[in-house]
């Protein structure tokens, strides 16, 4: 073991690591490490340096290993890099693994209160021992406080080693504990103890360090679930129904929090919203459908297992043409799977949810920013198309803090409530027929209960005619079913278009979706630096629009990058576009951790031998 002396030297102390490295913090869950880790990340963000934080946590309340990864990237890359430059090893149980993970030339910090030499054998990294527990035991009272403040002490140590501005850290603590003076004092004390300990004993700062930039102005750090909840509020959603399930729970928690602040009637103190915590996901989607049928914008956040339960009702909403907004914050399946790990494994499940011929509109946000805008848009689409709309986020987007451009809202926005007939309109027509295609866009008119006696109709999941009546007649049944198919064609023209980054390559392309975007963009830069000309399309919705067809037709070798085992996006593309299947090559990542660019670069180079030849790699 190498105890870093005052003149520590790292083998990779090249100047280009400035504002470009990865810190990983190995903690025990339930010990309060999150606040220290957020403090570190946010301090760097406040210094104007692009940063990303990812939380790898167990499905547990207390005592199991948890990791937090902070990537500092002056170029603004948001994916995992695959490197670990600085490990904060706070969990004795995972030492061995954590030590192994550090990239050569990197650093490791551990709590040296208790001797651990045998576990920490590596000659190619620099190891700092700081008696964190001893420092806290000597300074603070109370077992809980000592445990919690240990984290702030290491934040202080890192502050000194990495040259994080101490004032920024102090300010952030001041904001967190604005109304808790005693907590603020102990936190500030812990921060300084760590900072001074490092300053006195180690050569601070390390070559691996941060320096102020101006790249985060007009940006925020927010997680996708919070952003989606904001989108729901701005869309004018009034009914939220849900059943708690990781990793979607924080979406409804956030919605509730926003509503408690912004949806209270100023005169009466009453609520301009209804949130129903249901007995299960079956009831949650039922309540969403009931509310939407009755004219309220309603939604439910859930994850894969919830979608499985909701299938029957989703088919009803599709066939009876009732709007519904469903957020699927995807997690690792099948079955219970790994509830706190990320995947994009519900594409097929959502696209064709429920028995019989059904197809659903899906939106694929790539970031909290798109979660916000797509959340709002999903209500417009659901009501315009009178059908369920899924927003397929995932745990990586939903629960991690991402740096995003500040969210904006256009005050001119008014919800598109779709074709709903008013009492006046009903008064003027002779007779209302629920499922008639009057406008040629395959979208019928609907009415809301209580509006007008002429508007009454009977909603049913059983066979019905275009006039709304019950039927078991083949022709009458098919008229409605065929119109629903045409309605899906209309949907193609309304959903968000794919984002295409084309450099004019007629051969190579990557197609991806959602949270893969950051890793793909970084991979594109790496590939292009190597001279590989490659285009990129990020699909943002299902059904696929004409631009998706055109892009697929224009390229001869297409890599489909996605985070599931069975290549679900590739399957969907082959089923729903004219693309020739043999052109599509999968690059799959389904470990449960977010994808990094290295796998994509390797995948492209491995499968494109002629390109490898062309660029000599």
């Amino acid at each position, binding site marked *: 073991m190498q105890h870093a002396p005052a003149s520590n030297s790292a083998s990779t102390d090249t100047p280009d690591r400035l504002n470009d490295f990865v810190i990983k913090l190995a903690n025990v869950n339930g010990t309060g490490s999150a606040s220290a880790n957020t403090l570190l990340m946010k301090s760097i963000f406040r210094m104007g340096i692009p940063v990303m934080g990812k939380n790898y946590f167990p499905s547990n309340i207390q005592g199991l290993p948890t990791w937090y990864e902070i990537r500092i990237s002056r170029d603004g890359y948001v994916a995992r890099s695959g490197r670990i430059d600085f490990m904060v090893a706070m969990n004795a149980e995972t030492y061995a693994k954590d030590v192994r993970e550090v990239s050569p030339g990197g650093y490791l910090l551990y709590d040296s209160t208790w001797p651990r030499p045998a576990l920490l054998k590596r000659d190619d990294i620099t190891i700092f021992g700081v008696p964190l527990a001893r420092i806290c035991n000597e300074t603070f009272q109370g077992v809980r406080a000592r445990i919690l403040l240990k984290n702030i002490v290491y934040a202080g140590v890192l502050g000194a080693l990495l040259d994080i501005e101490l004032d920024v850290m102090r300010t952030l603590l001041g904001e967190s504990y604005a109304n808790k003076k005693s907590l603020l004092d102990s936190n500030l004390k812990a921060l300084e103890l760590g900072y001074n300990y490092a300053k006195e004993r180690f050569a601070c700062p390390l070559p691996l360090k941060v320096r102020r930039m101006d790249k985060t102005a007009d940006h*925020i750090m927010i997680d996708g679930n919070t952003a989606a909840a904001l989108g729901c509020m701005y869309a004018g959603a009034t009914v939220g*129904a849900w059943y708690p399930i990781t990793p979607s729970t924080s979406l409804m928690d956030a919605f509730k929090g926003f509503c408690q602040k912004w949806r209270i009637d100023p005169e009466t103190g009453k609520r301009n919203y209804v949130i129903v915590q249901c*007995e299960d996901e079956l009831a949650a989607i039922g309540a969403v459908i009931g509310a939407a049928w009755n004219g309220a914008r309603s939604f439910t956040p859930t994850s894969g297992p919830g979608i499985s339960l909701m299938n029957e009702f989703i088919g009803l909403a599709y066939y009876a043409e009732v709007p519904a907004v469903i957020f699927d914050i995807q997690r690792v399946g099948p079955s219970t799977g790994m509830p706190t790990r990320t995947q994009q494994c519900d594409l097929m499940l959502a696209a064709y949810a429920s028995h019989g011929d059904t197809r659903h509109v899906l939106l694929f946000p790539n970031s909290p920013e798109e979660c916000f805008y797509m959340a709002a848009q999903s209500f417009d689409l659901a009501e315009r198309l009178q059908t369920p709309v899924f927003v397929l986020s995932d745990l990586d987007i939903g629960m991690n803090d991402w740096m995003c451009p500040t969210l904006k809202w256009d005050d001119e926005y008014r919800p598109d409530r779709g074709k709903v007939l008013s009492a006046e309109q009903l008064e003027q027509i002779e007779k209302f027929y629920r499922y008639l295609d009057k406008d040629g866009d395959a979208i019928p008119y609907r009415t809301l209960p209580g509006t007008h006696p002429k508007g009454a109709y009977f909603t049913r999941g059983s066979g019905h005619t275009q006039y709304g009546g019950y039927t078991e007649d083949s022709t009458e049944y098919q008229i409605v079913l065929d119109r629903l198919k045409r309605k899906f064609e209309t949907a193609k023209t309304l959903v968000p278009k794919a984002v295409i980054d084309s450099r004019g390559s007629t051969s190579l392309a990557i197609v991806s979706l959602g949270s893969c975007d950051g890793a793909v963009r970084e991979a594109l830069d790496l590939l292009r630096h190597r001279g590989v000309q490659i285009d990129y399309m990020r699909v943002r919705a299902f059904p696929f629009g004409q631009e998706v067809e055109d892009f697929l037709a224009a390229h001869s070798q297409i890599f489909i990058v996605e985070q599931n085992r069975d290549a679900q996006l590739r399957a969907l593309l082959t089923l729903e576009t004219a693309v020739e299947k043999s052109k599509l090559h999968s690059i799959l990542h389904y470990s449960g951790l977010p994808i990094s660019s290295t796998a994509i670069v390797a995948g492209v180079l491995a499968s494109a031998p002629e390109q490898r030849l062309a660029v000599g790699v």
Partner: protein
Amino acid sequence: MSFIAKPKVAHPGLPRNELGLTRRDYEGGMSTLCAGCGHDSITAAVIEACWQMSMRPEQLVKLSGIGCSSKTTAYFVSGGHGFNSVHGRMPSIATGAIAANKDLYYIGVSGDGDTLSIGFGQFAHAMRRNLNMLYLIENNGVYGLTKGQFSASADIGSKAKKGEANLQPPIDPVLAALTLGGTFVARSFSGDKEQLVPLIIAGLKHRGFALIDVLSPCVTFNDHEGSTKSYEFVRDNYEEVVHADFIPPAREITAEYAEGDAMPIALHDGSRVLLRKLDPSYDPTHRGKAFNYLRDKLAQNEFVTGLIYIDESSPEFHDMNGTTTTPVNQLSYQQLSPGSKGLEKILARYR
């Protein structure tokens, strides 16, 4: 068949309610149920109740699940929206619909299969939420559409058409409702319109979840000897314990009742339910005593009917939520969006 319109010619001499509407104006499509089905009598009672209440037809929302009973929402008040949803899940549709608009009348029609088997969870939770709705169970102890299997309400020893006896204990929705905090719990019989019509009115007026378990014999699969849900058995073994008369606001109680037997209960709109206790010792405002009374009578194979329990003081769903006065589906967008200025304030803590 339900999709064939009934002739709409009304006799000029038909009596009219306060809105000038006749009973015909509260009818729905033609029933497709078997001739003599108890459910059709319940449909007639609902029509009568809505007519007597002078309800505007579009103010009624009719919700149901799947099964013979659930079909009946198409057979009354065609001027109100209906929603025939999925099996056992009507209570969740009701939850959402009521969340969206608290100012309409909601009637949910279900059966013993729809409520006590596949839908038992949703039924229980709708009651816990004290949704402001009338929930009718058209209870015949048998699955009709799939041709005669026992349902969860079949009594021990009750015989199927081909003679097989049921061995599992029944789930009694009334006992369940008393346990789960139901605030209006009634049982009735499809063949007793005198009792059923005022119960339906009182249930619609009740502020909260009103359950009426209506014994409703299935003439095709469960009306034989040995069945405890046949017309004959129910007629012979039902006992009304508390008769409810509905008294609209501003009408005097004129009938004579023996002292101690009459108990007026005020409803939230100023109307009253006048309870006529046919057993003077019975207390329909005491949950525990009501429960014991029912258990004792059931042990003697007697179905206690009438308004078994009523509690007008418990908060209903929107009271508990603290919802604003305007139905949330009618709030303007300006009331719902904090606007771009608000967004700036919200995002301050994410910088």
